[in-house]
């Protein structure tokens, strides 16, 4: 302990990065990465399934907008660790679902707000034209409103994904944090710097890759936004 208290005197056997570590532990790293990706994907998908209908409800029924945004805002303000502290005792401390629920509650606001902003930006002319063509409320939602709101929805999904990737690591406190387990494990295991930094870099890379994938998918499903530019 006293040795590490003077951190600037680097131990020769404890470099910040080492290919040796990566080679020796690639299976562990890949397992952690897999858990990380799975948790992120599940959280964002579940959050989207809840959030988009909420945004539609707020779009259709204006009086609901305030309460929906206020509740998801309050959930967003509550620290992730506190959410975890409420959920984990109920579901069992080692249950990955505890982390998942905390992540979903957290991603909710980002998707609701951006989807609602996307829906509110649908031009009134487009709505009038759709109504004039005989679309009822639900048909108009599916064929006109939601497609035109896609840029907002995609923005919400991207923000939610990037912050969820970072947030998954919080689950390390109960051993369900994906790459966060490696970060915290490395810290607890004699300050194993190579492990901490490798897992950190992979977190950041994963966030960037998923963001790029979603951005690309967003461009594919909204070809008209490219032409108009």
């Amino acid at each position, binding site marked *: 302990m006293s040795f590490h208290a003077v951190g600037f005197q680097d131990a020769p056997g404890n470099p910040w990065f080492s290919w040796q570590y990566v080679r020796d532990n690639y299976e562990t790293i890949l397992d952690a990465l897999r858990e990380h990706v799975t948790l992120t994907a599940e959280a964002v998908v579940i959050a989207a399934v809840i959030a988009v209908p909420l945004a539609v409800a707020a779009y259709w029924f204006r009086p609901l907008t305030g309460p929906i945004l206020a509740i998801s*805002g309050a959930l967003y303000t509550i620290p992730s660790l506190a*959410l975890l502290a*409420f959920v984990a005792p109920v579901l069992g*401390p080692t249950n990955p679902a505890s982390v998942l629920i905390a992540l979903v509650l*957290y991603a909710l606001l980002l998707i609701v707000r951006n989807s609602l902003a996307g829906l509110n930006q649908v031009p009134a002319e487009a709505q009038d034209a759709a109504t004039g063509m005989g679309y009822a409320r639900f048909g108009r939602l599916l064929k006109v409103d939601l497609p035109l709101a896609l840029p907002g929805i995609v923005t919400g999904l991207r923000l939610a994904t990037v912050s969820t990737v*970072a947030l998954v*690591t919080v689950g390390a406190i109960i051993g369900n944090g994906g790459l966060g387990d490696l970060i915290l494990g490395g810290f607890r295991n004699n300050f194993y*710097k190579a492990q901490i930094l490798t897992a*950190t870099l992979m977190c950041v890379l994963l966030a960037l890759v998923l*963001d790029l994938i979603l951005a690309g998918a967003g461009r594919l499903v909204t070809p008209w936004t490219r032409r108009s530019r």
Partner: protein
Amino acid sequence: MNLFDAFRDGIVWLNDPLNWTNPGGILDRLGEHLFISACAVLIGCLIAWPIGLWLGHTGRGGGAVVLVSDLTLAVPTIALLTILPLTFLGFGQKPVIVALAVFAIPPLLANAYTGVRQVDPETKDAARGMGMSGGQVLRRVEIPLAVPFLAAGFRTAAVQVVATTALASYVNGGGLGQFIAAGFGLGMAAGGDQIVAGGLLVALLALAVEGILALVERVVTPAPLRRVKRRAARAGRIAPATGDA
């Protein structure tokens, strides 16, 4: 255990006066929590506001501001919290404060930049026409008109830092999160009550800071500017940046 029992146990734990006054009790941890948060937000302000105001004044570096926000969004808090103690900063509260300050910078920076940029160009022209120098325009026109944005950024950053300080407990950095981390260490049977109690304390503190600073933001925003700002917030990308990551 169901949710009701878990919360009842948490309340029982909170109701024990010794849990408040013992060394390392709630009062001690609350003090640590507020001290760490205040230092981090202060450092963040000292770094981010001058840069953001200056970039906004010159109108350059908008891309850099967005890049900084996006990059820090992708870096896990726990990564900085575990890496910084292993650098020259050493262990203790110092690396925790620095780590949290790093995450406080993006909202402060972005809001300072936007606050100056959104000032009506005609107002700035008028100020110049009155013979003000660049520095005078910044001090006497742009900064006063940017105050609502500075307040919004301050609130966002402060709430985020207070929430994130809970994670300092992962590296034994102090604060109210210690109860949660210690509880998880003890296991559910012995530590379940203090996990929920710690969660309640952290959540209530975050909501209280959010509420108080929302009031402050309202007070420092002159009434005519409130509507302008809401319109500005509605346009463009909407990234509410409270909370922690």
